[in-house]
């Protein structure tokens, strides 16, 4: 690369971020056209770290089918679109996953009047899925493993998938658990549908960058880690100014009171301070978009900090 992504971003003055075409809680435009969600907050964190202003993001809505080519071709600098980290994607598509901002697993949504209690009873069911996702492959594996038959009904967007499910075109809608909760609130009568207990796969969702630009890869990786570290240290957007004068050396290093941490990434020393100040720590992002205070109402579960029995763990910033 003649010109690194960071230089290009600084020159343009904004980060081009690939998001979904609309998935509540992760990336969704409100009726005024402002984007919000957990994935969107990651884009904002990267913009805050690199440009010092979280609002300097250009959102590019992408379907599942287009997302990798958009990243490969340089149309976006960063893909933050609940994308599952897999070997194939890391290996043959020329991509790098920069971390995991949501630990997810695939599940099933059924309508209650089917009377199904477990995924093992789904032999012969018609299943609605979204095209171009790992979901399709996991579904095939699961049904093959238990010797069951199914009919895949494939749709292009999550909107259409919900519509197909609601019309009764299929018995089951399968997707990542987090999405199932998001999609359920789009039904005209959410109480009529329920999420089955089985989780049939591991879906670590995270931001993706192009291979071949390690500096940019590091920036995205550590922007996420900074948000997680901030939560660990109890730094939030409300108290971040006060915490600057904290006596804890870890907090000092994070917020750039001690010089030199930003230089390694090619950023200002206030990079992490800007993230926490303008976007918030990981816990705040989670609560605001998908957690208990949001319409989705998802438990922290696996996405709690490692200190609280979850999986979110950031390498030390030093």
């Amino acid at each position, binding site marked *: *690369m003649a010109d690194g992504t960071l230089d290009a971003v600084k020159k343009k003055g904004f980060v081009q971020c690939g998001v979904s075409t609309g998935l509540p809680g992760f990336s969704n435009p409100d009726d005024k056209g402002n984007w919000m969600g957990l994935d969107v907050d990651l884009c904002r964190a990267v913009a805050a770290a690199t440009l010092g202003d979280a609002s300097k993001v250009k959102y590019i809505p992408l379907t*599942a*089918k287009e997302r*990798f*080519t958009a990243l*490969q*071709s340089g149309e976006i600098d960063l893909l933050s679109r609940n994308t599952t980290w897999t070997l*194939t*994607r890391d290996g*043959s*598509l*020329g991509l790098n996953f920069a971390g995991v901002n949501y630990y997810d697993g695939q599940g099933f949504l059924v309508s209650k009047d*089917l009377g199904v209690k477990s995924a093992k009873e*789904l*032999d*012969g*069911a*018609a299943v609605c899925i979204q*095209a*171009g*996702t790992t979901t*399709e*492959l996991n*579904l*095939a*594996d699961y*049904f*093959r493993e238990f010797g069951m038959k*199914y*009919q*895949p*009904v*494939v*749709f*292009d967007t999550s909107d*259409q998938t919900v*519509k*197909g499910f609601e*019309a*009764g*075109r299929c*018995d089951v809608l399968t997707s990542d658990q987090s999405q199932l909760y998001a999609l359920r609130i789009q039904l005209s009568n959410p109480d009529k549908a329920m999420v089955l207990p089985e989780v049939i796969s591991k879906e670590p969702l995270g931001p993706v960058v*192009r*291979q*071949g630009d390690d500096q940019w890869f590091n920036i995205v990786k550590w922007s996420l880690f900074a948000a997680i570290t901030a939560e660990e240290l109890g730094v939030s957007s409300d108290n971040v100014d006060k915490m600057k004068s904290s006596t804890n050396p870890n907090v000092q290093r994070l917020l750039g009171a001690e010089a030199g941490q930003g230089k390694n990434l090619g950023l200002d020393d206030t990079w992490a301070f800007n993230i926490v100040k303008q976007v918030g720590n990981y816990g705040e992002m989670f609560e605001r978009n998908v957690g208990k205070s949001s319409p989705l109402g998802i438990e922290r579960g696996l996405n709690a900090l490692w200190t609280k029995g979850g999986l979110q763990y950031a390498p030390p910033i030093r």
Partner: protein
Amino acid sequence: MDIQNKGQDKAKTKIWNDPAVRSVFFQVLAVGAVVAFFLYIINNALTNMEQRGITTGFAFLGDQAGFGILQSLIEYDETHSFGRTFFVGLLNTVLVAVLGIILATILGFFIGIGRLSHNWLISKLATTYIETFRNIPLLLQIFFWYFAVLQGLPSPRNSMSIGESVFFNIRGLYLPGPVYEDGFGAVAFAIVVAIGIIIGLVRFERKRQRETGKTFPLFLPSVGILCGLPLIVYFLAGSPMHWDYPVLTGFNFKGGLTIIPELIALLIALTVYTAAFIAEVVRSGIEAIPRGQSEAANALGLSNGQRLRLVIIPQAMRVIIPPMTNQYLNLTKNSSLATAIGYPDLVSVFMGTTLNQTGQAIEIIFMTMAVYLFLSLSTSALMNWYNSRIALVER
């Protein structure tokens, strides 16, 4: 030219004014430009893929696909290769195109003739049909038939049914499927023989008419032979076939023949849309026949049916065939919109799911385009040959 070039050598033309030289020069320029353009593109694509570590080549076609497909005319499951998904998609495209062409032709002919009807109401109705469906985007019509109409269908447990053997619900149309046993080959053979006999009869009748001038009605005997002969053979062979009826088990009907709603919606939309264009083709074809031809046929005392069959339609065919071929090709190309409602055609399966799972966009798009290109060009070639055969011999 001489006047402009006063004082210069008038004996020979300037080299850049010599048409032959010019033509060579222009062509070299054109070839150079095209070659340079392609080199530039290919070079860019290769460097870009190199840089981004994208795999290239057709090796992926041998890998295991690992995803299911809703409808397949050949045996397919998750363990087959990506190459197989290409053929599954291709056959689904061919299926919807062939059915669409047949249905759209029938409907289009009716509406085209309806437009020419002397009955004012019928012709206005046909005109309304044409103007309505011709001017609304096909994609919208597909969505309409799929989402708006489909939602009105009942769930599998409250299906509409005809006599416990045909069921229609939101999951599709369930028909009894024939299951062939040993000895069914004889019945198939009998059908072939029956068709052979009919062709022979027609030829004999034509010859007799030329010699004696008497006509002999052939339609009913033909139908009789076509239905009767296979039936006799069928019973002689001991009924080597039974029907497999769809049965409601668990969530859905099992057994029999299933026609998925995606196929139904796509087929209705393609038929309704293309029929509007075919109707116009038929109308202009028939209107192109001079009135004198009809009058002459009447003067010879031909009946209405004979007039259409022997005078009007054979001549109208010449005008109708080329635009009709175009419509058939359009229908085939339009069937690629299947991807919008998830009917597993070539574009939706191969250029959609397979592209996604492998990420090899260039190879896959190239293969998909090549298929449509092959269909289009071979059809055009066939039509040109046919046209040259039936063209009027100018004397």
